[in-house]
């Protein structure tokens, strides 16, 4: 890490890197945020974070149907809003993804990883002035894990059997051992509310750096700085305003006319144009989400592994990277995990485009005639183009793919997880375990490749309860290889998150956790007029 930072420092001094890039990369190399800032200061005389100003964000992904109750958050606007007014027990490290303390100071598992003790901070106040108590934490987690709950985190918390306060600490008991519990508690639904939000789930009273002052669903949210914030290393702007802008051109226009400081979800096709604008900076953050084509392993003709392999060899990943995401992404290897996950597998051979091998496996599969690939623009941006590109790639191997375009509306209920071969997108999951248990466990509701292997399930349970990281990593590697060679997932690219900022916005932290600096963007950046 030190070598890398030295290298970055040199690059910066010769002007090959911007300050922002330096901070981002140094953090990627493992430096903490403040350390990276300090390093930068020593090498380029940069200013400290500046307080004050009115920060305006123009974000895609809000609707008039949004609600303030954290249990219901699904849109990116509410994801950011929640991170702005509330805190979770645990946060994740922006570059390693490891759990770091937040409202929980520290934690300790029992030897079998079944019982976890969390020490809760005692110096934290809610926005209404009340001190945060362990009881509030217990009530929050109970509300989200209750069977009658509508919380988006209900599935994550399903293995919890007991939540209690014991001697001022939080005690969580699990049905089955899970070494990832702290990471699960960093989920953005699990914002700690007074009495768990049972009195009024939609009251945005939290412990976060900003207090919500106005909420118009799908239109605009405003915040003012929480003067009693328990942390001093965040919340630099005096006030924050989020304007919901679902139109890509409107976002770009608002940013280039200086009306907002940051926008999200830039179209990869227009990044080149945006980079030419003088007052605008484009930021790409590698993520864990991916674009993919899914085959059902239990449905003919895809129940034949040779046919699946043929299709996996018949896709040109490099071309997909270039043409579908404009180069802003990384190549996938047909298993749903990349190096942004903790304990990611290493040394698995990269599968490449090989029409000969594809033709060989296709012949061996004994299948003849075309296969139907269903796609729609809502599967992922550029999914229709990607399907046609795939069709052209496969043609060279003598495989005929019929691309069938489906309506955007209802794609996720009528096509995805229903049809045997379709385009799909997956967002980030906090851990490898959650990634696999969401859609590769035999009994998973969203097993969208119908990958049902008892031996795989066994490995997954084994990894979940393994506290030794080296052993865990090895199990995850085995699992990845299984999915890669026998699964129904064709994964051409992991897409980057693309945001753009005005040059007066500083301190953007690239966070592998999720888009928009894992939702913390409003409290991590500052304005330099």
């Amino acid at each position: 890490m030190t070598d890398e930072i030295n290298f970055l420092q040199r690059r910066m001094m010769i002007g090959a890197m911007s300050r922002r890039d330096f901070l981002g990369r140094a953090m990627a190399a493992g430096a903490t945020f403040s350390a990276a800032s300090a390093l930068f200061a020593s090498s380029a005389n940069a200013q400290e974070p500046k307080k004050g100003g009115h920060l305006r964000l123009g974000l895609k992904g809000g609707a008039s149907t949004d609600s303030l109750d954290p249990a219901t958050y699904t849109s990116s606007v509410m994801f950011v809003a929640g991170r702005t007014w509330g805190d979770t027990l645990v946060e994740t490290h922006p570059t390693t993804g490891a759990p770091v303390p937040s409202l929980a100071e520290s934690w300790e598992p029992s030897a079998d990883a079944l019982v976890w003790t969390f020490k809760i901070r005692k110096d934290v106040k809610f926005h209404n002035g009340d001190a945060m108590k362990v009881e509030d934490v217990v009530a929050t987690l109970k509300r989200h894990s209750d069977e009658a709950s509508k919380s988006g985190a209900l599935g994550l918390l399903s293995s919890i059997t007991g939540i209690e306060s014991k001697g001022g600490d939080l005690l969580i008991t699990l049905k089955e051992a899970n070494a990832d519990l702290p990471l699960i508690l960093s989920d953005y639904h699990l914002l700690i509310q007074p009495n768990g939000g049972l009195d009024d789930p939609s009251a945005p009273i939290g412990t976060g750096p900003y207090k919500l002052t106005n909420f118009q669903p799908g239109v605009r949210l405003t915040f003012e700085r929480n003067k009693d914030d328990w942390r001093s290393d965040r919340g630099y702007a005096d006030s924050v305003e989020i304007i919901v802008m679902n139109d890509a051109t409107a976002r770009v226009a608002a940013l280039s006319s200086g009306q907002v400081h940051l926008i999200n979800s830039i179209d990869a096709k227009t990044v080149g144009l945006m980079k030419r604008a003088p007052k605008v900076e484009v930021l790409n953050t590698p993520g864990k989400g991916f674009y993919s084509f899914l085959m059902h392993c239990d449905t003919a003709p895809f129940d034949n592994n040779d046919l699946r392999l043929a299709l996996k060899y018949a896709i040109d990943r490099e071309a997909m990277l270039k043409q579908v995401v404009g180069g802003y992404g990384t190549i996938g290897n047909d298993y749903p995990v990349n190096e942004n996950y903790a304990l990611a597998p290493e040394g698995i051979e990269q599968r490449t485009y090989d029409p000969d091998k594809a033709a060989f496996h296709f012949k061996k599969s004994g299948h003849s005639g075309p296969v139907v690939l269903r796609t729609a623009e809502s599967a992922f941006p550029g999914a229709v183009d990607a399907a046609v590109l795939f069709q052209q790639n496969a043609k060279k191997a003598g495989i005929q793919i019929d691309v069938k375009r489906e309506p955007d509306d209802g794609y996720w209920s009528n096509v995805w997880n229903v049809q045997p071969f379709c385009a799909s997108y997956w967002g980030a999951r906090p851990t490898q375990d959650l990634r696999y248990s969401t859609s590769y466990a035999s009994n998973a509701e969203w097993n969208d490749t119908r990958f049902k292997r008892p031996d795989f399930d066994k490995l997954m349970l084994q990894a979940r309860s393994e506290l030794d990281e080296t052993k865990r990593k090895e199990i995850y590697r085995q699992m990845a290889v299984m999915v890669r060679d026998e699964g129904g997932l064709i994964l051409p690219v992991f897409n980057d998150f693309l945001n753009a900022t005005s040059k007066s916005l500083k301190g953007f932290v690239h966070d592998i956790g999720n888009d928009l600096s894992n939702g913390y963007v409003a409290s991590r950046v500052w304005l330099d007029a």
Partner: protein
Amino acid sequence: MIHAPKVSFRPGRKLTQRFPLLWTIVQRLLLSIVLLFAVSIVIFGGVEALPGDFATTYLGQSATPQAIANIRAELGIDRPITTRYFQWLGGVLTGDFGMSWANRNSVTEQIAQRLGNSLFLAFFAAIISVPLAVGLGMVAVLFRNRLPDRIINVASLAAISLPEFFVGYLLIMWFSVQTGIAVFPATVYEGMSFLDRLSAIALPTATLVLVVLAHMMRMTRAAIINVMSSPYIETAELKGLGGLRIIAKHAAPNALAPVINVVALNLAYLIVGVVVVEVVFVYPGMGQYMVDAVSVRDMPVVQACGFIFAAIYIFLNMTADILAIIANPRLRHPR
């Protein structure tokens, strides 16, 4: 000209015969109410028939069977459709559109705000575009087949041919990004001063004016030209009246009926059909509200929006009908 026989107060004549105009209007009103009921059934049935389900769509990728079941139970979606229809209708008649499934707020309250925004924008677009369109139409007739007419025609055709989002983007590019004289985005919110609101809606209003202008202008022109060939206009010309005076005082009143109809259609469009402009300018109107609701299958909101849109259309068309009847002596005094 034929005059209708004078109505005298003879006993034994029916009320409907004594006040034919009033009766026509009452008929129209009753018809509108029946139509509105029919529409309410169609909307409710149509929304029910939509494929997709609120609970799964709303929870998205975080849906678990348990969470879905919980939401369904809470909303009582399993009750029979007729029960829900009459309950809904009862609410609507008292001005209560129920509660949004997605964010549990009163639909009536949210719609009041959104509809207010839509009407605000539509009002300013209308008070600029309607007089402008009618005025330009008259000017075009005055200079018929000469340069001003051609310019007005070509420019308005060009404006109507460009899609509204493109007109919007052009205005944003020129007035907001390059010169910075206009405010963007056009988001209006509570607590904004009236003047701020006005400057916020400048660009969307301009876009809407450009989009609806041509239609009304061309209709005015065509209707007036139609009348201009009548013998009484020739008489007026022979009497030596000025061109503009003939058009404004003698021709225009007789060309009113088609113009009123087109204006009504465009007004309805300005209120209910501008979702694209709302999205482009980030304006929180009814259209965006409804689209948001449709995409997560938030049925109470979709139904309420559909119902209000239908009511606005019916109301404006009814008004246009009545005005057209009043403007036309032959319809005013039916035999």
